[in-house]
């Protein structure tokens, strides 16, 4: 199968996908209720899409193509409300967050669809370990070469997105010490990591053809890269974020990426270099492990500072672009995260006061469902 042609899309349009946790209302463990939730929401009119995911205790909400923060957040709220209503109707709580703090992977049930069964066969327990919840952000690109350019330039800022969205400190009943432990599960997939350093779409097509030729992959879906092009949408897809604890934060992070993309396309005009990737895994690890406190090494200047400081500086650079995109409110929220902390610090605070991960999950679900 060859790669699809890169579809046209409106530059800087945005779309958000959020994977959500479905929880039982007694113990706040994951509950395999996706089929019932999906059946229920199918009867409601709602914007965007609500879809099944790998295991039966997750669902995914997708927005339609949006241009700016206001529309995006309105649509995400509408989707959240539809899913929350279905949850109440079925005694199921819905929550954000990148991992479930105490679920056991072996108890997860694969959603009954051919692709999920295939993946489950292929990856074995990894598929169930993959009961993790991420936010994917699509950014519209004027053309395929521009998409590859944007992808490589955004790679430098992957730690920003990880640190801002991080909300998965707890795994299998314990504090891992990581801000985003979710990404550790992604890294165990053979085709995770970053896209190859190619800047022309026809080179990318050659790479893809070689990969399919080896029989390792069949489609773009088989690559679990941090950022990957999505030719059928005409977008690049940033996949490193944990699902944040509220839709407002999810929308703000999406708009932060959007504003940064505008800055890269319109103002920065720097060519990506392969050596930018020398610090890539180090920076990414720092973000996963320490969140906003992580060390960030600038690939060009080799200067070291905290991720928080780097985001602070970026907010200065992109403020005009954010204004242009009507994303001022989103930038305020980003600034707020730098001050009060990300989802992970909220979860750790909740655990410190409740002493019980089930209570943390209950609060997390209440926060998400907005009551």
């Amino acid at each position, binding site marked *: 199968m060859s790669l699809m042609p890169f579809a046209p899309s409106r530059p800087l349009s945005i779309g958000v996908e959020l994977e959500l946790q479905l929880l039982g*209302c007694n*113990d706040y463990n994951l509950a395999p209720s996706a089929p*019932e939730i999906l*059946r229920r929401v199918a009867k409601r009119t709602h914007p965007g899409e609500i879809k099944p995911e790998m295991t039966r205790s997750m669902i995914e909400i997708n927005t339609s193509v949006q241009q700016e923060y206001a529309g995006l957040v309105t649509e995400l709220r509408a989707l959240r409300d539809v899913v929350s209503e279905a949850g109440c109707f079925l*005694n199921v709580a819905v929550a954000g967050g990148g991992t479930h703090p105490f679920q056991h992977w*072996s108890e997860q049930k694969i959603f009954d669809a051919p692709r999920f069964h295939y993946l489950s066969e292929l990856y074995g327990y990894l598929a169930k370990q993959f009961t993790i919840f991420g936010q994917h952000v699509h950014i519209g690109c004027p053309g395929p070469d521009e998409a590859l350019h944007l992808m490589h330039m955004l790679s430098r800022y992957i730690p920003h997105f990880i640190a801002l969205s991080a909300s998965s400190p707890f795994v299998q009943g314990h504090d891992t010490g990581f801000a985003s432990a979710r990404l550790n599960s992604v890294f165990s997939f053979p085709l995770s990591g970053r896209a190859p350093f190619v800047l022309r779409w026809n080179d990318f097509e050659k790479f893809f053809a070689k990969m399919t030729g080896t029989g390792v992959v069949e489609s773009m879906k088989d690559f679990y890269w941090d950022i990957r092009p999505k030719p059928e949408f005409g977008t690049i897809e940033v996949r490193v974020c944990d699902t944040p604890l509220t839709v407002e934060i999810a929308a703000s992070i999406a708009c932060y990426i959007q504003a940064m993309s505008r800055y890269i396309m319109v103002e920065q005009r720097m060519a990506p270099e392969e050596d930018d990737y020398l610090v890539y895994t180090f920076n990414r690890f720092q973000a996963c492990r320490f969140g906003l406190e992580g060390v960030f090494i600038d690939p060009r200047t080799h200067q070291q500072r905290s991720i928080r400081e780097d985001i602070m500086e970026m907010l200065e650079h992109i403020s005009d672009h954010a204004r242009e995109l009507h994303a001022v409110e989103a930038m305020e929220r980003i600034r707020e995260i730098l001050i009060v902390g990300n989802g992970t610090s909220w979860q750790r605070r909740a655990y410190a006061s409740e002493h019980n991960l089930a*209570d943390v999950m209950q609060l997390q679900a209440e926060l998400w469902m907005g009551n």
Partner: protein
Amino acid sequence: MTWSDYLPAWPLQISPALWLALTLVVAVLLGEAMVRHLRLPRIVGYIGIGVVLGPGGLGFIPQLPVNEWRLVVDLALGILLFELGSKVNLRWLKANPWLAGTSLLEAITTFAVVFSVLVWVNVTSTAAAIVATIAIATSPAIIVRTVTESRAQGQVTDRLLLMTALNTIYAVIFHKLAVAVMHGQAGTSFVHTIFAPLYLLGGSALLAWLFGITFERIHHHLGQHEETFSFILFGMIAFATIMASTLRLSPILVLLAAGLITRYQRKHTRTFPPHFGSAGAVLVVLMFIANGLAADLRGLRDGFLLVLLLIVVRIIAKLLAVLPLATHSGIGWRQAISLGIALVPMSSVALLLTMDTAIDFPEFAFGLGMVLMNWIVILELAGPVLVQVALRRAGETPEKKT
């Protein structure tokens, strides 16, 4: 000093308790064998061993003193009822009124069908009503135990717990009313006919409410120490159960309502070990053995056809009654069928209600009481299997059994 000072007298004086202890060991071993080789629920083994070894079977274990085993059954049932109540979220009924509809429909259909069959075989309508109210209840003991054991989770499980709690409440309330009517017919004065059920229901509700607020207070201070708290809870359950019997209230209603109230009021999640610790778990196992021991299948030869008919119509009633509102309430046909099947078990609650009736009306014990006893024994043995199969077919048990 002589031999007899320190050697036991021969033949040995063996207390029934020793047999019971030995039965516990054998029953648990049998339960394990059931799980490993036959993939059947453990409680079938517990009840089965009681049936086989008890006075109604091979007679290895003599009739137990009624008061002692009644205490074990009351306590264990108290634990299971409280556990059931604390797993049921009454707010769900508000969010999904179709559930309340399903529950009422299921109870009414069960009552109507059992009542009609009994009237058809020439049972007096009051006695038929008493039996029909007992038939409404799904066994909380079997449901809680099987759900815990199979680690089931999902819509069918949640609904099963909710509907079992509700139909147990209906059964107790309407049973008391039917008994009051029977008393009225037997010539009890009108004041007592009215006041007896009022006292029982009102008093039980009050005791449950007191339990609920005390629970909340203590949990507020001790909630973090899960184990310590479950010891206290154990004591509270025992206290409430015995208190309810002492005041001649309904321990079933008190403990179930107490569980529901604490769940309704709770602000924090609570996870307790199953049956609130190992002492509770042992009591639960003993209760199932005791239920088996109490089984008396002697009347089965005469009443076999009637028992079979009643079992079949009750299953059909429960099954058909959950179907019409299933899709409105948000589950599919397949799940609804599983739910209907899982509502079939009868056990301790029905047994206690039958025995209470028999105490009031001795003639009941020999006629319909016998039919009910046989009916209960059969559904006690078959019930756990039905629940397990239903939950497995609904896809709510873990995929690989460990």
